[in-house]
């Protein structure tokens, strides 16, 4: 038995039956990290020794008859923009290269209270700005299905670590597709919860009105389990929803009969790769076979979503990243003679090109004289996007689209062309604009064996519907039994 091939719910069963100990599980993952990390470069910080000693403590507690949470002793990986007390949180930026947070994010506290074991902090595009993880200051993470391609981004480290079985599951964050698109590229399951379902306290902000933390897992059941752990109202986050806590694993009914699924035609038009389109059409057929009612529909406003997204996200980012000024923490230039130079040079030297690009864009759209034409207009379009989704959800339980118009692209092919890189988010950004939940699950591979993902979008706080539909499809198609990443090709 290869422990690292197991899902979390399988590991939990084996912990329960005492077939495996936390230490055996953790050790297996640590070994796997030693084996694969050099090829895929998913971690910014590994905590292998700490993880094993934590596992030993948990095993001891279990042996002593202490009642522990069911997931106690399961390892996890954490995207490096989620604050972890005592362990550096870099956002994959030179700016925070040596930054150690003095506090834990709310989700980190939740993981700790479940006695999950952190294996380390995962690579990402700097400050979550990017769609390929190439914009990390530290390293380029590789896609385990083909090492010369990108894992997607910005949660590329999280998706890669799960896909290469270096962690059984991971936390990512999603501002415009940063969980779903890498999950799609890496053939794993990525869920972006409804805005407000998971506390953002301790998530280093990129765009406050769009950011959400979510699970990246091997299968849908694990996604439900991790969502159970991280969701819930948090007094420290005013935008967190005060709703009753749910058990998402109970939603996995393996039945979609009568479920109404809309297929917005705009997502299948120009720009979509033919093989991706073909796979999605097979998926639609599959849902019909399973008893769902599938219909074509339209989301006209989708064309404006990308522009709207980049205006709002950049505007918020330009303000959110102001605190990195070289005064209290983070990178400080050595090259200054006055205050202005201290600010300017610390930020010029500490941020990468893409982050600076977005700060400049965001500053521009908020500037007096431009605010109405850009930011205000974008907020108005945002309202329209929400309304259009509302209308669709009056008719449908779910919407189905590709997660990305393409499979993972070659490293270096888009990193110098920001516009093309921005287009990688085309299928995912409107969901963040509307604050909706959506999942990406694998629905096959292309002719070169690269995974293709489909996206299921639900109404606000309808994660249960999404998870059940995804689970039903997963059970019927068994992607994981058919395909596995082979670490093909060498790193360029």
């Amino acid at each position, binding site marked *: 038995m290869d422990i690292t091939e197991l899902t979390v719910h399988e590991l939990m069963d084996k912990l329960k039956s005492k077939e495996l100990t936390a230490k055996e599980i953790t050790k297996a993952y640590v070994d796997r990290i030693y084996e694969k990390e050099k090829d895929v470069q998913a971690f910014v910080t590994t905590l292998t020794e700490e993880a094993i000693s934590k596992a030993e403590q948990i095993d001891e507690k279990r042996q002593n008859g202490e009642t522990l949470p069911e997931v106690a002793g399961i390892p996890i990986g954490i995207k490096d923009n*989620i604050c972890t007390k005592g362990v550096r949180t870099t956002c994959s930026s030179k700016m*925070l290269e040596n930054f150690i947070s003095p*506090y834990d994010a709310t989700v980190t506290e939740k993981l700790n209270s479940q006695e999950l074991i952190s294996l380390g902090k995962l690579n990402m595009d700097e400050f979550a700005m990017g769609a390929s993880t190439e914009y990390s200051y530290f390293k380029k993470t590789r896609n385990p299905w083909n090492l010369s391609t990108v894992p997607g981004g910005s949660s590329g480290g999280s998706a890669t670590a799960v896909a290469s079985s270096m962690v059984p599951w991971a936390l990512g964050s999603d501002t415009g597709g940063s969980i779903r698109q890498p999950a799609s590229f890496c053939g794993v399951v990525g869920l972006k919860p409804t805005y407000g379902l998971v506390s*953002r306290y301790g998530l280093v902000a990129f765009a406050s009105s769009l950011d959400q933390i979510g699970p990246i897992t091997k299968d849908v059941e694990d996604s439900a389990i991790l969502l159970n752990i991280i969701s819930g109202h948090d007094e420290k986050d*005013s*935008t967190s929803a005060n709703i009753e806590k749910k058990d998402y694993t109970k939603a996995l009914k393996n039945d979609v009969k009568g479920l109404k699924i809309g297929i917005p035609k705009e997502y299948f038009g120009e720009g979509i790769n033919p093989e991706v389109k073909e796979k999605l059409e097979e998926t639609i057929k599959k849902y019909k076979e399973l008893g769902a009612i599938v219909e074509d529909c339209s989301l006209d406003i989708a064309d404006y979503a990308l522009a709207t997204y980049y205006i709002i996200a950049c505007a918020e980012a330009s303000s959110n990243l*102001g605190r990195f000024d070289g*005064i209290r*923490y983070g990178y400080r230039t050595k090259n200054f003679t006055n205050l202005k130079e201290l600010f300017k040079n610390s930020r010029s030297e500490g941020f990468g090109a893409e982050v600076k690009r977005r700060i400049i864009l965001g500053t521009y759209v*908020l500037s007096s004289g431009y605010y109405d034409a850009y930011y205000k207009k974008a907020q108005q379009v945002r309202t329209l996007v929400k309304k259009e989704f509302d209308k669709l959800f009056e008719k449908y339980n779910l919407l189905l689209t590709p997660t990305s118009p393409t499979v993972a692209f070659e490293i270096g092919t888009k990193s110098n062309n920001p516009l093309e890189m921005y287009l990688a988010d085309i299928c995912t950004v409107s969901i963040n604009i509307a604050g909706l939940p959506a999942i990406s699950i694998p629905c096959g591979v292309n002719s070169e064996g690269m995974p293709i993902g489909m996206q299921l979008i639900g109404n606000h706080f309808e994660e249960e519907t999404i998870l059940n539909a995804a689970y039903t499809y997963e059970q019927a198609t068994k992607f994981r039994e058919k395909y596995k990443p082979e670490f093909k090709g060498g790193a360029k």
Partner: protein
Amino acid sequence: MAREDYEIVIGLEVHAELSTKTKIFCSCPTEFGAEPNTHVCPVCMAMPGTLPVLNEKVVEYAVKAGLATNCEISRDSKNDRKNYFYPDLPKSYQISQFDKPLCEHGKVEIEEDGEKKTIGITRIHIEEDAGKLNHNEFGAGSLVDLNRAGVPLIEIVSEPDMRSSKDAENYLRKMKSILEYIEVSDCKMQEGSLRADVNVSVRKKGETKFGTRTEMKNMNSFKSIVRAIDYEAERQIDVIEDGGTITQETLRWDDVSGKTFPMRDKEDAQDYRYFPEPDLVAIRLSDEYIENIKNNLPELPESRRQRYVEEYKLSEKDSKMLTASKYLSNLFEEALKICGNAKAVCNWLLSDVSRILNEKEMEPDQIPFTAPELAKMIELIDKGTISSAIGKKVLEELFENPKDPEEIVKEKGWVQISDEGAIKEVVTKILENNPQSIADYKAGKDRALGFLVGQAMKETKGKANPQMLNKMFLEELNK
């Protein structure tokens, strides 16, 4: 044109630190004067990933201020970010309110020489204070103290309705008094918990358009505000008279030289890039909520003044002076409760106490003694233990070294001589030494009696009971 042909136009932006126990977006204490960076947490230090949570008390206090200044209270308000870089601003943006303030369209009344005037309140909004830079305390460079970062403020913006530095002073005193009365700010100007940005412009009388204004930031004493306005108006008139134009700019008032100086160069014209704060939700207030605050508003100076006239039979003028400061007024009421002599407490506060405050350039909230101490002193006079002349000395002592007046009197040996034998002795001695006065008195010159009593007081260092002296001299002289 002559100086009198110009009209001065003044608008004030008053910043008042609210006296909530905790900061506006975290639970750190707001207390003044702690060791640097001890009242801080990840939120007010703007650690990456932290989020603000609005302190509901801040909204309540701001609504109170709005209601007390006759504002309309917004049912639907929000927070906005004001973006700029400065080392004392840890997030590099200040959470404030831009286009939807909590309170709007208010007014307060001021009075000068019996003439009443209404000053419009444009808006009152809530925001967070910044930290403090301590310059050059430890050699070169500055140190940042974030204790004040996140202390809640209200900014009260007036209409440009003031026409003289006296108007501005009256308005600010009025505002201070209102805020003290409703207990939303302790208004300690010397600690910076009440400060004002002063906008000044001038125009020719009869002109309907406003002139270009300049702004003097962070003024925190009445005296410097008055001086600064007078200086700045004079300067602007001089510029215009010399054929120049006024530049809209921010100025710094220098108290030592008594002049204003430009604070920033024009290049640095700030664009604050305001936008709605995405980390906070809209502030929605119900009618019940507002009604409830309205019904529980403490007594305001106006109604207290009226009460003094009716209940304590004080004059309009005295009542107004007493109630202008809540501290003075509270001192009055507390002392009154103990000694029961409204007239005496009022007189002491408005004459001698006010005179000493003036001499020492102190505000009523800096009075070092307590109401019971003042009451005790008045009781000592009423009982005849000390004379009012000694009372004045006791009061001076209370300012220097406040403690139980009875102890002061004992220590200093100021107890009034009311012993008949002792008084008689003094009277006899004075009469012996002043035969001319006796003759004058007998010749019908009543003033001679006053002179004799004065001599006796001098002899006893003011300790003799003046009534007894009077009586005994009369008895002796009329024998």
